[in-house]
């Protein structure tokens, strides 16, 4: 037996109490540490010749994706198979959803068919809460609207800790650059990185930072228990200077039609993560991107594949983090009262 399949949740750091992973806002720092340690163990599993443990043997995981996705979906499915789960994959193009079936009906149907773990992605913010309200099993959010992408934020955190000397984010400068307004990745990273003690900077054109100033202002006084302040700026040089971590976010072509950007060319000229700009960061700084990348727009091809880039590490770690979360949820039999509402 492996450590991963036999180790109970570490009670010294607080028992795992979550039934769902919908957002990281309700996950405490000791719980994040537990996820990180469990991810370490899953990385150990992935390093073996046979990357499979029986932790979720016979358990049913369904991925329900209302939005296109390659890496998140494949990553979840790989993680579930590595834990020996039975995996069913539903995309809206081939399901009753195209016949107008509601989310609620779809989720009830999946539960009746025996699904215990529902991994979902949806274009509307908050959709997984609706699923969780009626679903008897565990909901894992694979991204909802602009709201949250908790597994991405956790794999980002894991990757940063893995690559930064000492494995500690405290005082480390992290710059997230791009379309922050529409980014669930940025929102979830705000929660985890301010909890980790990072010096977080969000950067992009003013049109793609809308509303984030108000959020940063609300948190500027250190009012939120367990979370530090963060910075919002359109000054790309200020954001990148002496950064330890630089993360690019995807810029979508629709943003021009929405009148938010003059052109991709202009975006690239002012905000692209290219070699010259990255040189403002610390020499040992790492470059990240949640994918999929528009190379030549938000990131230059040479930076994307440079020695600083940990983008493929993010993909590998994503599988381990998702294994860890499925494993922890599978052991979560008791629901804490405080969790009931979430």
């Amino acid at each position, binding site marked *: 037996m492996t450590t991963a399949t036999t180790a109970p949740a570490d009670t010294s750091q607080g028992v795992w109490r979550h039934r769902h992973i919908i957002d990281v*806002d309700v996950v405490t720092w000791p719980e994040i540490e537990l996820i990180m340690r469990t991810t370490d163990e899953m990385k150990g599993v992935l390093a073996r010749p046979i990357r499979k443990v029986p932790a979720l043997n016979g358990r049913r995981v369904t991925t329900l994706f209302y939005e296109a996705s390659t890496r998140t979906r494949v990553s979840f499915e790989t993680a579930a198979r590595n834990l020996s789960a039975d995996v069913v994959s539903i995309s809206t193009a081939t399901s009753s959803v195209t016949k107008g079936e*509601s*989310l*609620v009906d779809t989720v009830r149907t999946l539960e009746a068919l025996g699904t215990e773990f529902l991994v979902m992605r*949806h274009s*509307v*913010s*908050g*959709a997984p*809460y*609706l699923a*969780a*309200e009626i679903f008897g099993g565990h909901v894992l959010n694979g991204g*909802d*609207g*602009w*709201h*949250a992408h908790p597994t991405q934020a956790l794999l980002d955190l894991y990757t940063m800790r893995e690559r930064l000397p000492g494995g500690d984010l405290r005082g480390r400068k992290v710059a997230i650059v791009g379309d922050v307004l529409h980014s*669930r990745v940025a*929102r979830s990273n705000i929660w985890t990185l301010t909890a980790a003690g990072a010096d977080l900077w969000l950067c992009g054109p003013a049109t793609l930072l*809308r*509303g*984030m100033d*108000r*959020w940063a202002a*609300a948190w500027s006084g250190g*009012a*939120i*228990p367990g979370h530090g302040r963060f910075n919002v700026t359109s000054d790309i040089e200020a954001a990148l200077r002496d950064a330890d971590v630089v993360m690019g976010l995807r810029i979508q072509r629709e943003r021009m039609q929405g009148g938010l950007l003059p052109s991709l060319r202009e975006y690239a000229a002012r905000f692209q993560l290219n070699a010259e700009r990255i040189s403002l960061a610390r020499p040992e700084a790492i470059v990240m991107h949640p994918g999929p990348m528009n190379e030549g727009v938000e990131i230059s091809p040479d930076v994307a594949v440079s020695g600083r880039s940990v983008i493929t590490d993010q993909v590998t770690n994503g599988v381990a983090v998702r294994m860890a979360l499925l494993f922890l949820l599978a052991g979560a039999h008791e629901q804490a009262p405080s969790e009931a*509402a*979430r």
Partner: protein
Amino acid sequence: MSADAGRGGRAGAGPGVGEKVGRFELARAWLVDPASGREGPGEIVVADGILESVVWLEGDDAGDVTDHGVVVAPGLFDFHAHFREPGFEDAETIATGSAAAAHGGFTSVALMPNTSPPGDEPGVIERIHSAARASGSPVEILAYGAVSAGRAGEQLSAMGELADAGVLGYSDDGAPVRTAKLLRSALLYAGMLGLPVVEHAEDLELTAGAEANEGYVASVMGLAGWPTAAEVNAVSRDLAVLADALADEPRARLHLTHLSTAAALDLVRRAKAAGLPVTCDVTPHHLSLADEWVAGARRWAWEALDADGRARDPWADRALLAAPYDTSLRVNPPLRTPVDAAACLAALLDGTADAVATDHAPHTVVDKEVEFGRAATGISGIETALGVLLALVDAGKLPLGRAIAALTTGPAGLVAASPHTAGISAARPRGLMEGVAADLVVFDRSDRWRVTPDALLSKGKNSPFIGRELPGRVLLTIAAGRLAYEDPGIGDDAA
């Protein structure tokens, strides 16, 4: 029926809903008469449907009667509601809406014309009045006509014929009058007929795709922002057009419904000071709830302000108690900040807001049990309006008399005095006047009631107050001398 010093009681079998109230006596209650501005201990007698006597008790006679127990007030008038008939009877009907209204203490209700077909022709209005008669409810059902044919914003509706059919004004509610040009024509033509245009002020381009009030909460929640500017821009347009129209038609009148932002209310305050014939209303939900409810907060808007009148942080306060993205909170205009809610209250207190109107907007489960951004907008609110205002009274934010006036004389004063409205009883002064058909509500401020799907008589269970208690159980509603609602508990402890 008779009652003394507290809960109403009734001897023997009383009238059913819709039947004339033969005799009802209430001794030692707190009477509120907004028409005269008087309130205090008193007793009333209703005989043969007529409010036979109103006696104000003085000195020892008043005993220990306070305004914290049983209260008698004129029947309430909702200036803005949706009963969905014709066309959307699975969400509400005239009959179920009337029953809900009476449960909420309302005896007159004005219905918006965004039905299917819309109320752009007199036949639709006649159908509504016919359904009201058939319902058996004595609640007075009034109707607005549409401003534009098909509510499409291109041509005027059959405005004159609609006036002849008894509409009390015109509105394309659910949406603004599409263009300033058409609004100008509508103000002139409605002014000629002596009727107001009731405007839903929203800049649709600024709110395209919007999900929640633009601000801190929407930013954290990843919801597309619904900017204050969308309301301010629309109100600015409407006021400019009104000022312009007045040059040609001095009887042009504009009413802005469900205003929700401090900035828009401030524009109305200044326009009124400048003498423009503009009026406005605010809703119970914009007075009492804030956008933080979408994140899961469940405290009153006035509890979400700090000592300096700034919005508190629900995350910092650990005030998020419920699941986020509850679609019962999705409403147009959206729930705003606690500061905006305070501005709605200030507007009510200083007279900038003339009335509280519910914007009762029942929806089916099918239209609400969906993703937040896809849910139909609207709150089923006609049964909770009085309780919400009484919560403001209990909190010391609003005098009882002002709360009642906002639901009685306030909206009644908005009904234009015109030949077309002569038959509308809502237009008469709403007071406790002897010798006329009894039209009143009796409620108990010392008794609370739990809002549950079963407790709501409306088909629309889309209330954010589900599961919560509200003050002021309605014991009895009498409309035009006939029984409209009676609390099921009354018969149990018959005196």
